[in-house]
């Protein structure tokens, strides 16, 4: 069929060419299958040095269509190959605004009905010929349900004279063509492709009521996917699923927007073209890795001092020193404990990597974004605290006064103490851990696992030192009766940890759920007390059963069906962070402080109290006209996870200071009351602010 058609087209072309021996402003109609076409000039006589317009005029049969420069999921854009006299140049096709042609599940972009494709032709001023011979070989695909490709040649001969003469017959055609073209707008727009999404931001001071957009780049967006269009504070935000066949982001391309006032045209630049801070590319560097390993060991060491770990670990340390066992045995214990710690870290890393592989933006501390985990952890710490207070003896547990664990539980006990130490440590993402973890999350799997293992080694280090250099123990206080008192004292940090966890739980689940959890805590207290009575042989077996029922009941109370309505976040002098807001402020040349925080992050809260929400910091913010944006990561927010990742972080806190003309500066994770003021002073001495009028 197509061969026959092609022969037919060629015959017609020959005929058309034969008719073109005379000068005319049209090539005459070329009739092909389901479409007729002509090439038309807007001038009948032209002069050297002028620009003229040529229109390729398509009239397809009813409901047949041809394609836009991005044809969409199938189809083929019309193309023109010009053959022109030396010096004469032709511009690209000035495409009319396309329409989306939906053939579920596919979408094409093209034109139904008569279509005019205009190109500019430039004649050099030194053009000497008396005739301008224009030849165009045009390829098109015309489709309804089926598609018919065609190729045809068109020829035009225009007289070259001293004065050009407009082709009045076709004025209307060119007028129509310009009406159908999208109106070019001088708007700045940038786009990026991340996480399988195309996103673009266009600076648009006035809302033009955009109803649809057309991306001229092929294989960039999933054409059939829904388009997300929002106008917010002078910016147009566009979003669409990325195309399955996407493989390279073009530096720039045309974007057509359907607005209330008709289609408009602008250019989108790739984000890398204007970005000041390079996005993090996970390139593996051996030196960085070694440094990070060392940092991770130090971070792990410091974990031992965290309030929620310290009571557990100090007891373990004391028991190790106290034990009457041989040095050999002590070494084995220390090794088993270390194995427990390291393995737990590696296991956590594996889970983290699995989540990462699943494309989830998961950060350290993600355990604490699950209310059930928060509640359970509060219960666990409460029971541990009760046992420290002496209400119940966890005879089979790992936190007994020390002797039992080492003597009765042996190596297994040591191993599980290590495991539990890590579980209990997880809420206390120490400042040193943040950096190492963020780094690990962007690294190849083996490097990430090694970082986590190093954290574990760091955490186990004091015990290994104790086992191998018993002299180290002289650094530790001598055991005695004070230990029992200390044990009871150590219950109180644990109770405080419980309060803090319950507060987080309340923020996540609401007041009602919190009341239920507190009721659960009372039941748990009763269960422990009964169990303690049983241990002292002051109660019968029934009490044990009752204790068990109470325990189950208390856990059941954590299954609060619906998370409570989110309370309004108090933002005090801060604005709520959003990517758009930050981008806007930075583009406006504003100094900006970004604070990424979460309710369960103690470091964050402390930093805010001592260093950010202070009068002196507020005064510094006012002095430098600093905008303060706060992002809340209490419940997992993918936008914030992405932002953290940009700074190689996988956890909060993160403080970033943006100063016009300077790369974003990351402030330390532990802020002092002077940190902000000093950083601002330094930046302003480097690059004084230009105050806006």
């Amino acid at each position, binding site marked *: 069929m197509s061969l026959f058609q092609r022969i037919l087209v060629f015959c017609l072309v020959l005929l058309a060419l034969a008719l073109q021996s005379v000068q005319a402003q049209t090539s005459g109609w070329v009739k092909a299958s389901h479409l007729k076409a002509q090439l038309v000039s807007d001038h009948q006589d032209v002069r050297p040095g002028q620009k003229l317009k040529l229109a390729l005029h398509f009239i397809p049969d009813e409901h047949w269509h041809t394609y836009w420069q991005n044809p969409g999921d199938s189809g083929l854009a019309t193309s023109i190959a010009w053959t022109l006299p030396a010096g004469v140049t032709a511009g690209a096709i000035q495409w009319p605004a396309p329409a989306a042609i939906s053939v579920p599940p596919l979408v094409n972009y093209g034109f139904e009905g008569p279509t005019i494709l205009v190109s500019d032709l430039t004649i050099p001023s030194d053009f000497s010929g008396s005739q301008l011979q224009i030849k165009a070989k045009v*390829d098109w695909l015309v489709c309804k*349900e089926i*598609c018919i490709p065609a190729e045809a040649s068109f020829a035009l001969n225009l007289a070259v004279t001293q004065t050009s003469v407009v082709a009045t017959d076709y004025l209307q055609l060119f007028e129509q063509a310009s009406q159908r073209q999208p109106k070019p707008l001088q708007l700045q727009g940038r786009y990026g492709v991340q996480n399988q999404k195309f996103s673009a931001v266009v600076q648009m001071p006035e809302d033009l009521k955009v109803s649809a957009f057309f991306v001229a780049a*092929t294989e960039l967006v999933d054409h059939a996917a829904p388009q997300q269009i929002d106008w917010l504070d002078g910016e147009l935000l566009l979003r669409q699923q990325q195309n*399955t066949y996407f493989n390279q982001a073009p530096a720039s391309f045309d974007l057509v927007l359907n607005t209330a006032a008709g289609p408009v045209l602008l250019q989108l630049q790739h984000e890398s073209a204007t970005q000041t801070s390079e996005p993090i590319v996970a390139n593996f560097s051996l030196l960085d890795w070694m440094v990070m390993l060392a940092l991770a060991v130090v971070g792990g060491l410091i974990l031992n001092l965290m309030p929620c770990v310290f009571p557990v670990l100090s007891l373990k340390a004391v028991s190790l020193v106290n034990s009457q066992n041989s040095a050999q045995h002590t070494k084995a214990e220390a090794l088993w404990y270390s194995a427990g710690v390291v393995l737990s870290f590696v296991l956590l890393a594996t889970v983290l990597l699995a989540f990462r592989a699943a*494309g989830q933006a998961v950060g350290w501390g993600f355990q604490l974004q699950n209310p059930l985990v928060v509640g359970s952890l509060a219960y666990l710490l409460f029971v541990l605290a009760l046992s420290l207070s002496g209400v119940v003896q966890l005879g089979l547990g790992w936190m007994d006064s020390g002797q039992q664990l080492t003597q009765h539980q042996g190596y297994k006990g040591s191993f599980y103490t290590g495991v539990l130490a890590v579980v209990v440590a997880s809420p206390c993402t120490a400042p040193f851990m943040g950096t190492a973890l963020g780094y690990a999350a962007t690294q190849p799997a083996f490097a990430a696992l090694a970082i986590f293992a190093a954290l574990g080694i760091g955490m186990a280090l004091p015990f290994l030192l104790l086992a191998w250099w018993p002299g180290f123990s002289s650094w530790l206080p001598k055991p005695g009766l004070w230990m029992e008192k200390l044990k009871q004292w150590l219950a109180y940090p644990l109770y405080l940890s419980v309060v803090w966890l319950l507060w987080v739980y309340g923020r996540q689940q609401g007041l009602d759920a919190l009341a239920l959890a507190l009721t659960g805590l009372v039941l748990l207290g009763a269960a422990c007390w009964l169990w303690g009575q049983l241990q002292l042989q002051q109660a019968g077996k029934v009490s044990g059963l009752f204790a068990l029922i109470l325990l189950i009941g208390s856990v059941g109370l954590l299954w609060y069906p*619906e*998370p409570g309505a989110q309370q309004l976040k108090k933002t005090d002098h801060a604005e709520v962070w959003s990517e758009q807001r930050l981008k806007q402020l930075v583009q406006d040349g504003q100094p900006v402080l970004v604070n990424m925080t979460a309710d369960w992050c103690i470091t964050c809260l402390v930093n805010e109290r001592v260093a950010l929400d202070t009068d002196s910091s507020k005064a510094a913010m006012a002095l430098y006209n600093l905008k303060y944006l706060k992002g809340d990561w209490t419940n997992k927010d*993918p936008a914030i996870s992405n932002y953290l990742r940009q700074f190689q972080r996988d956890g909060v806190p993160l403080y970033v200071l943006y100063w016009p003309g300077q790369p974003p500066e990351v402030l330390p994770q532990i802020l002092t009351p002077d940190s902000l003021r000093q950083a601002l002073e330094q930046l302003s001495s480097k690059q004084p602010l230009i105050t806006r009028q």
Partner: protein
Amino acid sequence: MKLKLALSLSALCFASSLFATPQVGQAAPAFTLMDSKGQSHSLADFAGKTVVLEWSNHECPFVVKHYSGNMQSLQKQFGTEEVVWLTLISSAPGKQGHISAAKADELTSSRNAMPDAVLFDETGVTGKAYDAKTTPHMYVIDKKGVLQYMGGIDSIPSAKVDDIAKATPYFSDALTAVLAGNPASPAVTKPYGCSIKY
């Protein structure tokens, strides 16, 4: 509320990763389809062999272009024991390009084609699972069932036979690389042709 939103969002992400588009380097979507001889074939049946999927529609000019000799010579060149070549037709009944089993066999013999089987995907489920958009549209799946190439048959999107010689043969290069145990480069290209008539 926010938590609920975050949860449903992550559920959505998870769901979309389950049902979304195929990805090179991931397991190719499984399928079980009838061929023109009335025999059922599953992707799993071909474990240990490299599988080629070719979406086709015999009337589509882009398919006609490549069945002017190029497709047959590719089928012949790669017609070894270790390669299984499956031609798929996803045109729905009543839609253009939908053909009977007898017609499919007739086309195979009249075109001197050498696919191992011509499979019918009348529901379009398999085509959509592969995000197949055009005819022709080519896929290469390695011995382990991992998708290694998806996209166009070559680099020049046209219906002109002359362009075949000028084009970079993406599909042929990819299949050669995969058979040698190397990754295809490029592994994802723009498919071109007629839309599949789902």
